[in-house]
């Protein structure tokens, strides 16, 4: 069989979708996480429940939403509630299985910075800030992060901790008594990083064609590889077809990358 060609956003989306389990209640963000959830729903996880921080539960978007408050999320949804309710009754109460997170920086222990580059009071670059990510990182059972694998995105330590990963190590997160288990995987265009026993992110899988050396060169700390380093199965024809033909035919999120 000939090898299929695919772009980096397609690779990220497909590998993120595979992490979802049927029946998961997922706090969805826009962009690639939204595509990943919709892909999972059309493949191995038909009973996935998509929740949006705008207060929509069980959305079945008929078109690709540009923002997390798009009207297509509302029409045909199971329920719509206030912002307070979605964060309190759903997330804080422990009714969310999976949260997707992103940020400008992700460090060795999975802490995320989406707030500032440089000092807080006089920021060099002012980023959008937490939104709901501070609570999602703390209270969703499992968190997944999707990001391009670049050294500047993977510093040893974040400039500002917008949302907690394992902090300085798993013991510190446990002492903080957060209900969620923290980041479970970081999906990059080179492979997958997962926390080890100490909470440090280590490389557990490479995508076809990527090398350990490439991953290490593009990481800001001494990235370790797991003892059994796996290779992810390449994107299937069916996964690519659903993404390209059904979910993002105009390539709004899938453009770019190689």
């Amino acid at each position, binding site marked *: 069989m000939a090898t299929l060609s695919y772009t980096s956003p397609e690779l990220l989306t497909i590998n993120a979708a595979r992490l979802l389990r049927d029946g998961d209640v997922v706090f969805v963000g826009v962009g690639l996480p939204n595509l990943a959830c919709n892909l999972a729903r059309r493949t191995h996880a038909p009973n996935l429940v998509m929740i949006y921080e705008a207060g929509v539960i069980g959305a079945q978007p008929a078109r690709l939403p540009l923002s997390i408050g798009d009207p297509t999320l509302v029409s045909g949804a199971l329920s719509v509630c206030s*912002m307070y309710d979605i964060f309190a009754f759903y997330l804080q109460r422990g009714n969310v299985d999976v949260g997707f997170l992103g940020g400008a920086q992700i460090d060795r222990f999975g802490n995320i910075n989406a707030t500032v580059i440089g000092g807080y009071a006089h920021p060099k670059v002012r980023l959008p800030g937490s939104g709901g990510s501070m609570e999602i990182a703390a209270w969703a059972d499992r968190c997944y992060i999707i990001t391009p694998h670049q050294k500047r995105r993977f510093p040893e330590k974040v400039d500002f901790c917008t949302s907690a990963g394992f902090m300085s190590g798993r013991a510190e997160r446990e002492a903080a008594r957060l209900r969620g288990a923290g980041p479970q995987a970081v999906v990059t265009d080179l492979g997958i990083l997962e926390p080890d026993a100490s909470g440090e992110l280590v490389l557990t899988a490479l995508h076809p064609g990527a090398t350990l050396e490439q991953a290490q060169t593009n990481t800001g700390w001494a990235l370790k590889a797991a003892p059994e380093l796996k290779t992810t199965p390449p994107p299937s024809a069916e996964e690519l077809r659903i993404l390209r033909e059904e979910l993002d035919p105009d390539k709004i999120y899938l453009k770019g990358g190689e």
Partner: protein
Amino acid sequence: MGKLISLAEAVARYVQDGDTVYAAGFTHLIPFAVGHEIIRQRRRNLTLARATPDLVYDQMVAAGCAKKVIFSYMGNPGVGSLRLVRAAVEAGELEWEEYSHFSMISRLTAGATGLPFMPMNPTAAGDLERANPSYRTVTDPYTGGQVVVVPPLKPDVAIVHVQRADEEGNAHIWGIIGEQKEAAFASQRVILSAEEIVPAEVIRSDPNRTLIPGFIVDAVCHVPFCSHPSYTQGYYDRDNAFYLEWDEISKDRQRAQAYLDEWVFGVKDRQEYWEKLGPQVHRRLKVKRRLSTPVDYGSY
């Protein structure tokens, strides 16, 4: 005198220089027309509070209305950076106070319910809690554990746009209901704008849909298409193309000023703005009907 007045009169009467303003709406029902009227009336030194400042506050900051923003996500939703607010913050020209979504909404809920603070479970994201002294911790009197608390947010004026209201301001809202109710109850004054002003019987036909009772509302304004480029569920679509276009316009302060000159100062009111957008935009934002199944309240 009745509450049903023009938007210009409502802003003249209820929005003062130096006020803390909360223009409500999570992506949905953002009251752009009211923001534009505040710009036209050249209010100054406002503190602009919103979970997501969105384009409306980007424009108000560009127009020089604000001295401070209070927010929890400062981005152009689905597009990227909120360039003008961001530039003003980076240049040190604008004060800011920052929260996460849940703590921002908890502040509003404390304000809306008359509580001294709202408790939240810990998130261990300590950097923001250290950067913003409004975050405090208290001891849970029942378990002895630590609880994070935030103080009430009590804006001087809330601005809330709704699908339909009667002349007293009893208001029906559906679709994403964000923080409309909390903003209205938390504020000293409430300006309510509506796509449609309907007889009281319409409101009474579906009381579960009334999020805001008229007796907390000060002014009721009939402003069709108030939300554009945001949207009103069932009335018109979100103008995503404009959100993308603003990303270009706002790269350059002069272009942003030219936009304000043409689309805010250059029009008398929202009706003129909507006509100026033209039939092509109107067609693009038109929404097909999708009615809910009626419910039977019963006659007792």
